[in-house]
Structure formats: C-alpha cells, structure tokens
C-alpha cells in the first residue's frame, strides 16, 4: 500500500511538472500604422490620490500611440469635490451622466477604452491601468468600420465654435449609431491630491472634460448604415470665458448601441486654434 501511495505522489509530481511549454515571448513596444483611433475615458477627481499615477500611464501611452490615441479625463463627484484652494470645479452634470451611462469605477485609477467590455461578460466597461495598453492595441488592430472627420470654425474674438462632423460607413453596420462631441481643456493648473507627493497645489490637469455639444450619451445619427453610406452633422456653441481656447480640444466619436454594447467605432480630435 505504501508503494502505491509513493507511486501516486511521484506520478503526480512528474505529470504536473515534466511537460515543457513554449514560453510566450514579450514583443517590443508596438508600432501602429492604422487609420483607426482609440478613445480612452479616464475617470478621476482632484481628491483621488491614486489618479495621478493613472494619468502618468496615459501620458506614456500617448507618447507611444501618438495620434492613434485620444484621451479625456472625466472628473466626477466620487472624488471630484474641489479643495478650498481650488480655482475650478471640474465636475459637471454631463460628466455625471457619462459616468452613470458607462458605470462608475470599482477602484481608481480606472478608465474605459473605446466603451468596450473586453471580458465580454457582465458589461463592466471600467478597467485598471495595467489593462489599458492591451485593450488599446486590441482595438487598434480592429478594422475601421466608419470614418469620422471634423471640420471646425472657431472665432477667438466672439468665441463662437461651429463643428461639422462627417463620415462614411466602410462596411454594413447594424444597431443605433450615436455621435458624441466633447470639448476638453488641457493644462489647467489647480490642486490635486497625490499618493506619491501628497497634496499638490499646482498640478497640471490634462484633457479635462468640460462639456458635450451633443447629448452626453450622444445623439442618434441613424439606425444601421450600409457600406458607402455617409453622415454629416453640424453643431455650434460659445466657449465660456474661463476656458483657455488655445488649450481646448474638440473630440468627436461615433459609437454603436446594440443591446448592452456601446462600442466606439472611431474617434477624431482637433484643437480649437489648430
């Protein structure tokens, strides 16, 4: 009997550990050459101590992916209430609506990549920072289904902005196509709490979500689109006085609402004074 037990242990250990596997080789950082662009919606707040590390990761990804990556930093009420020394309150009703639409993070830093649930499961769109690069790359490798082009006219004197978004379907698409146009502002110096450096009075906030020119959840373009079919929408607004228009960016994207899915098909961005 002892021999049997001894044999079992030996066989078990050998069976489990003797099979050699081919290791997965880590490739070099990817170089992408595609017309497709990916949208990352980062959820943050001035009182979120872990968030600056997420923003730094995103900056590194922007360096890597360049124009193929578009980033917006959405400040919500979870951590967004300003400090007594803050000059700005980055929270907006539109941001809250977007957070509710996409689902709020379980832990920070957190972001939504192209509004896609990469687990394919219970439609949690939020993901932790170590997943962002993989998800971005995965999306960049997808075929371009629809184009998004922005033409804009901005008058720095009257601060009137007109944005025209147009595009064409590269293949047959089913589901509701929605257009969202966001305005963000870069380089706003204001307080931020930080895990590493503690409270920072003059933190440089980037890609701060300001408003949407469409409904926060997007405006319906149409249901379904045939290959070769095009769309063309025009919106206008006045840029409020407090915003530095040279640092303001217009982001336009089309997403596909199909059941629980909210995936972004393509995104484009441009600075107001570019």
């Amino acid at each position, binding site marked *: *009997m002892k021999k*049997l*037990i001894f044999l*079992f*242990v030996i066989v*078990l*250990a050998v069976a*489990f*550990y003797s099979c050699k*596997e081919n*290791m*997965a*080789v*880590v*490739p*070099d*950082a*990817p170089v992408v050459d595609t017309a497709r662009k990916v949208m990352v919606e980062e959820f943050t707040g001035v009182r979120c*101590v*872990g968030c*600056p*590390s997420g923003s*730094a*990761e995103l*900056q*590194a*990804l922007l*360096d*890597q992916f360049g124009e193929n990556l578009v980033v917006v930093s959405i400040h919500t*009420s*979870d951590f967004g209430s300003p*400090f*007594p*020394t803050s000059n700005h309150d980055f929270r907006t009703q539109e941001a809250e609506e977007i957070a*509710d639409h996409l*689902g*709020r993070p*379980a*832990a920070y830093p957190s972001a939504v990549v192209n509004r896609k649930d*990469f687990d394919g*499961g*219970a439609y949690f769109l939020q993901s*932790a*920072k*170590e*997943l962002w*690069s*993989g*998800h971005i*790359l*995965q999306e960049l490798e997808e075929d371009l289904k629809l184009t998004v082009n922005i033409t804009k006219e901005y008058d720095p004197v009257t601060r009137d902005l007109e944005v025209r978004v147009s595009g064409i379907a590269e293949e047959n698409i089913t589901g509701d196509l929605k257009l969202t146009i966001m305005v963000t502002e870069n380089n706003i110096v204001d307080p931020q*709490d930080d*895990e*590493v450096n*503690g*409270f920072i009075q003059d933190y440089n906030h980037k890609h701060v979500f300001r408003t949407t020119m469409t409904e926060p959840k997007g405006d319906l373009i149409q249901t379904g689109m045939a290959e070769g079919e095009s769309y063309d929408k025009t919106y206008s607004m006045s840029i409020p006085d407090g915003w530095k228009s040279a640092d303001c960016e217009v982001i336009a994207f089309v997403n596909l609402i199909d059941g629980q899915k909210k995936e972004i098909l393509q995104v484009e961005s441009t600075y107001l004074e570019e």
Partner: protein
Amino acid sequence: MLLTKRNGLLLILFTLIYTLGFSQSNNQGTFSGSLESNGNFFQEDSLIEAFNTPQYDRQLFGSEVWLDLKYSNFGFDFGVRFDFFNNSNLLQPNESYTDQGIGRWYVNKKVNKLGITAGYIYDQIGSGIIFRAFEERPLLIDNALEGLKLTYDITPDWKVKVLTGRQKNLFDTYASVIKGASIDGYVKIDSSSVSFAPGFGVMSKTVDDENMGLLLTSLSFYQDPYRIDSVNYNSYAFSFYNTLTAGPFTWYVEGAYKTNELFWDPFFRRTIIDEATGLETSVPGKFILEDGNVIYTSIGYAGHGFGISLEGKRTENFSFRLDPFERTNRGAINFLPPMTRVNTYRLNARYSPATQELGEKAVQLDVRYSPSRKLGFLVNFSNITNLDNDLLYRELYTEVTYKYKRKWQLISGIQWQNYNQNIYEGKTGVDILETITPYAEFLYKISRKKSARFEFQYMLTAPGLSGYENRDFGDWIFAQLEIGLAPHWIITASDMYNVDPYKSNLPEGETAKDIHYPTVGVVYTYRSNRFEVKYVKQVEGIVCAGGICRLEPAFSGVRMSVRSTF
C-alpha cells in the same frame, strides 16, 4: 432551438424536478434547501457620505437572494442554487449589479471507492494555501470550481483527489484552466496517542490566450530596467502538510512553493519618462515574474481549563490568481489563513487586517485559562510585519469572563492595536493607527424567557504609547442594548458616535464633524424561519468575512433579511 448554456442548465433542473416527483411518489429520497435573502433600502445621507451611488441617486432599493435546493436519492446528491441580484451593491459597494440565474448546480455519486462530483465544487487542499474554492456571501465571493472532482479511497485512511475545471465568475467562468490533485492520509502509531495526518497537494493553472495577449502588450511597454523577456503560461503550486496529534498536543505544519509566474505588485514603484517633456513620474504597480512560498505552522495544547496555541506564517510572493489582472477578492485560486483574532464587537473589529499575499511575517499567540466554571481569562497577541520587518499590524487583546450562577455574565477586557492604514486601506500620507479600546458586555437574565444584553466600547486613537499620530476618524464610543424575548423576538438599539472627531488629510478650512450612527433592529425567529429588519447608519470601514476583508463606504437606510431552512 439551440441548446445554450442556460437552457442546458434548465434542462438539468427539469430532469432533477422530474426525478424528484417520481421518487417522492415512491417515498424515497430526501429533499432539503435553504433561502437567504437581503433587501436594502438606500436613504441618501451626505453628512456620513452615504451618497453618489446609483442606489442612493435613483434606484433606492437593492436585493440579493440565494435559494438552495438539494435532493438525495439512489445514492446520488443533486443540488441547484438560484441566485438573484437586483441593483445589488454587494459585488462592488459603489456600483449596482443586476443579474440572475443558476448560481450553482452539482451531481454527486459514490461508486464503491470512487467519488464523482460534477458541477460547481467547493473544496480545498490542506489549509487552502494552494487551493480553496469557497463562498463568502457578505462579500459576494463565490470561487466555486466549475468542473469535475474525483476521489478514491485507496484504504480507509488514505484518499486521493483529482480535480479540474475553471473558476466561476458570477454567472460566467474565468477563461484560465486549473487542475490539481492531492493525497491525504492518517497514520496512528500503535498503542500510543500519537497520530499523523500527512498530505501532499499540487495545483496548476494555465493562463488563457486572450489574457496572455493583454499581458504581453502591457509588458511590451516596460523599458529597461523593468523589461521582462518571456512569460510562462503554466504555473504550479505544491504543498506538503501534516497534523501531528500526541495526547493534548496538536501540531500542524504546511509548506507551499509556487513556480515562477507573473503577478501584480501594487507597491512596486516604476519610473515613467514622458518623452515630450523628459519629466519623470514614479508610478506605483508593476508586473513581477518570480516564484513564491509560504510556511505556516500552528501548535496547540488543550488541557483541563487551559489552552494555548501558537501560530506562525511567512508568505513571499504568493499571489495565486487565475490571471495577473485579477485583484483584491476576485479570481483567487487559493486562500491564505489570517493570523489575527476575529473580533466581533463593533469597535474592536473596526480595524481588521487583510492577509497580505505578497509578503508577510506573522505570529499569533492565544492563551485561555479557566480556573473555575465561573471565571475565564483570555490573552491574544498577534504581530504582522512585511518581509523588511516594517510593522503592518499588532494587537494585544485581553478578556475576562465572569458568570454569576445563571443570572448574569460579564465579559470585559481591553484591546490595543497598531494598524498600518496605508497598506490595508490604501490611505496615503497617514501614519500607523494606534488604538486602545476597552470594552464590556453584560448579559442579564431577567426571567426564564427575557434577557438583556448590554455592550459598550470606547476607542481611543493615538493614545501616545508608540508616538503614532494618525487618528483616522478620531475617538469612538459604541453602546448597544439587546432585549431577547425567547423564543421569538430580539430587539436591538445601538449608537456609534465619534466623541472626539478627526479626519486625516483634511484640507485647510475644513473640520471633522461629530456624527451619530444609530441602528435599531428587530429579529423574529419562528422555527427555522428568521426575519430581520434594521434601520442602519453605518460609518465607512473594513468589512471582513471568513478572514477576507474589504473597505466599504458608509451605509444609510433600512436592511431587511429573511432566512429559512427546510
């Protein structure tokens, strides 16, 4: 019609019910079950920061229901469990989760010496260090293994077990495949009181292709000196364990080793350089490729009126998860036993340390002495540090119990804690939290059916013993009165109040508020049915179940629960 997964499960269910009906007509078999249901009404209270979740904003109500049904006949055990989550905050305390379906099913049959279980399996190897599939409903952890388990009795004292499958992830399964085996024995030395219960287990995991793809992309951004060249799909964990019993002494020892695998170290600091500006940022968190080990031992003596136990554990890099992206309480294949006392009084349990899987050195000593039936003493000491000997947690807990006939009983003592809030709660810029908490519980039998229980605790923060200045929310007082009207009713009322409020990291110009957190509740029990309604104001804090903890936000509202077994 396509036989989808859900339809397939329903088919099994109908078969089960059909079998049930058939067999009941023959008066065979047993049918049993249980119901557990919770309902929470959310009442926004911005003062205690119970707000900004979908439940407080608009949903107002959330519920969870588990209905377990079990049927045994013809030597088979069948089980099925229905789970319902409706706007529930149990999965993620600040989010809403809605889904329903079959949360568990299994079929179990013993064919001579061979035991067969298929379906959702709860089991463990040794103390769980390399494998534990379990459920903790208060934290919505359900790590059942969806697959097959075979056991075989080589002799009455020696059993082997093999299992394979994938871990349950809510109503889905994780993609990574796990497999394992163990052998457990029992050897008694003839004509002595000495016996051994040795065992050996092995567990392995194969990361799925999709998660590996994501990992490789993430790793491709690591520049020197952080670069990792290649990663293995498979990792293995081995464990030897033994319980030695000699009269009143017991000694358990377990040693586990895990081969090289990739895991996430949230405390590692990595420098990222912004190419455009040249600015360097230190970012916490990095994937690490290393092997790991755990040594755990526990030695105990239980004699007349005297008991002592001493435990020790050293953990290094023992994060064993389905893939390296899984965090906190999700996707864990194993369970590392906690090394501190499980406190039950509200303030004594307020700061509980979660097991640190990447590095921990822990000891715990527990001594109990009862010189008579009336009197009992308990002293418990635990000390946890990281591998660099930085203090994570230290607790000294004393308790005296005095019983006066059957009329009244007094339990009283004092607790001293050092708690590394930065590590356990991720709160930054805070020192170690030191507390001293005296407590007392007085139970008085008013009559044969009526009893009153009064509980009192006072938590003093930063008492100055060790020079730590962190006070977290400041000093607390807690009092509770519970009236028992046997056999049906229990009525409770309590209040938790920060007598000397404080808040760390408060910006200038803001002051901490003193706030009452009252709770009033009624429990009604009739045979195997239990009904409970509570009005609750609960402060943000650590909630633990079975040695696993998470930080939960404040709660304000009404909690109801119905439990039943049949």
